[in-house]
């Protein structure tokens, strides 16, 4: 089966001689969850614009469902398949109210106004943000704007979502809500590619990770393999996920845990620590309530 989107030796220069992207080879299949990790200036946003067919490539080519993207028609076919979330959601919110904005993309595709509004309401319901429907777009917080922009993309039902630093500038709640929206979108079968410099987010969400450094993909593979390679991340000026760092330190202290899956979230790290404690006969942890009176919930709670 041909991939949804493929790049072959993709390269792009903003000004002649200065490569923003070089020799990028990616294959994205339906249902993939790919995180492109890179430091500032690595070329992440440019890569997403190139994948969305918005740049005239300097070299290489884009292939969408086995067909090269060259002509105007193939470019608009690609854009119909793809939803692109820009880093600043304000750049892609145009209508006065949330409901109207979510319907905006549908209107551009020729869907009649009342049908577009019905579908807009359904998407807002599905993403659990229907309480925002009547709000003015300019009155929303950054996190809400990002969710509304995502809802606008989801409304047109793209096969591939490209998200440029979706968690940038979001607080804990905003991030959790965003991840919930992403999961909900993925449940519909869409492939998602996101760029970030946040390795914690990549560990938590992605199934595969690509490291982008100075416009080149320096490594690509499974989440655990790439994100536990400190040397690789360090050379790309990235910080490993905090849960991985903690778990790897624990692995050194307790070698049998080396075979266990690395924890991606704080709650998984909590379980990791408890499992170590339980498997060491000399130290059996007591139930939390007996150790600290009125203790709140698990040792490490929350998703992140």
């Amino acid at each position, binding site marked *: 089966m041909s991939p949804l989107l493929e790049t072959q030796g993709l390269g792009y220069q903003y000004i002649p001689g200065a490569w923003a992207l070089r020799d990028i080879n990616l294959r994205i299949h339906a249902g993939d969850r790919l995180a492109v990790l890179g430091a500032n200036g690595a070329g992440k946003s440019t890569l997403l*614009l190139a994948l*969305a067919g*918005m740049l005239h490539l300097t070299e290489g080519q884009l292939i969408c469902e086995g067909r090269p993207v060259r002509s105007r028609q193939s470019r*608009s076919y690609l*854009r*119909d398949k793809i*939803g*692109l*979330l*820009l880093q*600043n959601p304000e*750049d*892609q*919110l*145009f*209508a*006065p*109210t949330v*409901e*109207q*904005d979510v*319907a*905006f*993309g549908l*209107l*551009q*595709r*020729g869907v009649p*106004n009342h049908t*577009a509004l019905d579908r807009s309401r359904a998407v807002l319901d599905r993403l659990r943000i229907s309480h925002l429907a*009547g709000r003015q777009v300019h009155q929303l917080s950054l996190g809400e704007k990002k969710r509304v922009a995502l809802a*606008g*993309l989801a409304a*047109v039902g793209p096969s591939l979502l490209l998200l440029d630093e979706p968690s940038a500038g979001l607080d804990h709640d905003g991030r959790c809500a965003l991840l919930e929206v992403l999961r909900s979108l993925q449940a519909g079968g869409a492939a998602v590619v996101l760029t970030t410099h946040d390795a914690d987010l990549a560990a938590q969400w992605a199934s595969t990770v690509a490291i982008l450094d100075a416009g080149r993909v320096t490594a690509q593979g499974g989440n655990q393999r790439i994100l536990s390679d400190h040397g690789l991340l360090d050379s790309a000026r990235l910080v490993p996920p905090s849960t991985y760092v903690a778990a790897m330190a624990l692995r050194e202290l307790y070698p049998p845990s080396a075979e266990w899956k690395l924890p991606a979230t704080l709650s998984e790290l909590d379980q990791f620590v408890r499992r170590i404690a339980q498997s060491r006969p000399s130290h059996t942890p007591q139930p939390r309530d007996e150790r600290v009176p009125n203790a709140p919930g698990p040792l490490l709670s929350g998703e992140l």
Partner: protein
Amino acid sequence: MIRRSHPGEVFLTSIAWLSLSLVLPPLPWTLFLFACTSAAALVQFRIPPRRWFAALGAPGAFSLLAVVPLAWNASFDLSDMRIWSAPLRSFTASSAVLLLGLSTPMMELLYAGRSLRIPAPWIDLAFLLYRFAAAAVEVSAAMTRAMSFRAPRASWRHQVRASAWLSASLFQRILARAHRTEYGLAARGVSGWVVPPAPMTAFSLSMAAWSLCWPAAVALAALLHARWR
């Protein structure tokens, strides 16, 4: 929930006040018309007062500036009505147009334009100009704010130099901002002429008639005033 006016209702009101400001003699009617437009803006269409008066600053300044060459032409005889007529008319006319611009989102204006069968390229051109204007306002406001924070007690000379730097980089930044918006439009599926969403409020004939009552009353008063004299 407060009902938002349909762009058609605002358009009719705005056109009515605009026509009156162009037809009625500026003295004594200008002040009265301006008061009526402001009342409509603040009470009927709920434009925040600060926004309304700030937006009137630019046409006010232009009208004031126009007084100087006109006064020059009239040998600075300030009792000559020719000096005041055009600036006062243009100011009240601008306030009537601002009533429409400030109370109705751009997308709804574009929708109204399409409903009136204005050709799609013209609508797109208006949207393009709006995008550039919005980017210019946003970027220049951000840069001015940043400049005032970075050099709060700069001397006049330094301020002039900083303003020169600001204006030198302003155009590039506006273009960059506008470019990002173009990507945003493409990302939302705009590949030709933009299709604006329909307003959420239906056109109400009674609301439109109510809005037109006031300009009609003023027109009647002006007629009676003219006949009386």
